[in-house]
């Protein structure tokens, strides 16, 4: 690392490297964050779950949403509706969306995650997600 010549320079480096530990710090306070869990079983992956996951991670970062944490989970049992994602806003029941395309993901970020307004495509909540 090049020599740090002032306290301000140190702070700038901190801003630059912050993202390296962000994900871990989020993990420490996961209950206070909006959690998005992407079902990542074979059926989900085949249907594009990985792309959806990457998309949500990148788009929420671009939108400056620091309170979102994206994790993956096993098959949620909705193979007919993959990719599925589960969104949990702190203090609320989890909501599962099915057939999540990238456009749908954008809508979920924009409405549900940012503003707490649910959008179409929710799978009725008879489920309990599988740990």
């Amino acid at each position, binding site marked *: 690392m090049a020599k*740090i010549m002032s306290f301000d320079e140190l702070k700038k480096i901190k801003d630059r490297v912050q993202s390296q530990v962000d994900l871990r710090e989020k993990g420490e306070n996961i209950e206070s964050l909006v959690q998005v869990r992407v079902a990542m079983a074979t059926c989900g992956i085949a249907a594009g779950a990985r792309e959806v996951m990457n998309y949500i991670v990148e788009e929420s970062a671009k939108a400056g949403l620091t309170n979102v944490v994206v994790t993956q989970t096993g098959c949620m049992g909705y193979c007919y509706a993959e990719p599925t994602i589960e969104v949990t806003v702190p203090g609320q029941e989890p909501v599962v969306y099915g057939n999540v395309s990238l456009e749908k993901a954008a809508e979920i970020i924009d409405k549900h995650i940012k503003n707490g307004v649910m959008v179409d495509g929710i799978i009725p909540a008879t489920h309990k997600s599988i740990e």
Partner: protein
Amino acid sequence: MSNFKMHMLVCGGTGCISAESELIVSNLQSELEAVGMGDQVQVLKTGCFGFCEKGPVVKVLPDNTFYVEVKPADAAELVKEHIVKGRKVERLLYMDPDKKERVADSKNMDFYKKQMRIALRNCGFIDPDKVEEYIARDGYHALGMAVTSMTPQEVINVIKESGLRGRGGGGFPTGLKWEFASKYDADQKYVVCNADEGDPGAFMDRSILEGDPHSIIEAMAICGYAIGASKGQVYIRAEYPLAIKRLEKGIQDAREAGLLGENIMGTDFSFDIELSFGAGAFVCGEETALIHSMEGERGEPTTKPPFPAESGYWGKPTNVNNVETLANIPIILLKGSAWFAGIGTEKSKGTKVFALAGKINNVGLIEVPMGTTLREVIYDIGGGIKNGKKFKAVQTGGPSGGCLTEKDLDTPIDFDNLIAKGSMMGSGGMIVMDEDDCMPAVAKFYLEFTEEESCGKCTPCRIGTKRLSELLEMVTEGKAEVKHLDEMKRLSRVIKDTALCGLGQTAPNPVLSTLDAFYDEYLAHVQDKKCPAGQCTHLMTYTIDPEACVGCTACRRVCPVEAITGEVKKPHVIDQDKCIKCGACYDKCKFNAISVN
């Protein structure tokens, strides 16, 4: 922005490394490459998670999945299942011994629930070899703040107001100590970090140095600024190779980044750090002995005053602090004295790190707020006594401390409460004993340690600890009488009052506290010649049950001292005067005819 969607933290502490955790790191990396996810999942080597007993530990984030006892061969499954398919690998999750369930999220593990990590805040969280990771956690910001916008006295005031007390054993207020050193005028002053850690079984300081070396480097620089010192010295035992390696790397990286050296962050303040290696003598942890050892002299204590603050390293004003004490410094400056003073008890602020050991389910390194009770530590965090046995005592303060019993379990742990109960905080060793432990034998273990470690400079300690351990040996061999117990007490008092340094002054504590709490057990040894815990071999009797003995002669042939006689197919007998209680006959008899009590 980094591209990583997940992090896999692999413990790189001494415990887990000895169980091949470095191979786990490289296996995980190659498995991730193989599935084309090397750029999406970051694998990191961190410091100790504290759960060393169940190591190697691998933690996956951000979903907080905590895997235990991971083997290098498990890497493929972890990647293919957890990373690719999002399915946790059940068999590697921690099994809650009470509920018999697997626990995935470390937050739900009893071991972590009551912990509060301040000194260990970065251990098991960052890669200790990367200064950027430390900076990302606000590292060197406290130093930056101090040198650019605070006067040395302001720094001292924050530490004073925080109520921080030394974690090396004495519990002396840190801010006050800094103030003393700051008041002396000298052309050169020194900051010394005491990383000698000689308490048997303790590894708090080692883990901090291995897991977060930059926090110590930063704290030493802050102390240098506060007291007006430009040189720092870490005294570390040579048996800590990994801690030394990480610290050396940290110092070098800090120098390159201009965080050590001349004109730190463009200010007038300059500071640098060097290492001194100790040979591992317990007494060298005592600050005056430590300073003499650093100067190349014999590591023997000298009388105080003068205190190091006045005349220390090379006769210059020197501030000596323990590793854990220093680990608290940067975060106190960042979060403020009120934040720190809000944690803990009235006179003991903040947290304390303990190395839990002995007959306890969760052996490991823990950090709890001051004021947590022993019961919470032993039963909630420690998971209770191994194999469902009964709790008997817990030794805090290592060889300088004492035993605490059932009646003390609800005592909130802090410096003053432990002293009031006849023990002490010490550096943080905590050894739990169960019904099978013999207390005179425990006291003997500690006295043999201090006898061995006594530097021999003063008579009460050199001769006194030897005599005490001889007396304890007599007790455990059934050769002592009641008058010897009184002699032990009297001798203990004399040693405490007349020894020169803390080693001798505290050495009798294990004897006094066990005599106090377990007098009956001592009496059983001296009057009835019995060891109720069944540990003292000399006090056991091996007898042959003539009804059960078939006269196979096996025991007679195995006895090393020919204490057994008997004819073939007739009951055998043990001559108690000859028997040396080796137990060989007991192990040999296939007919359960030999009993021991």
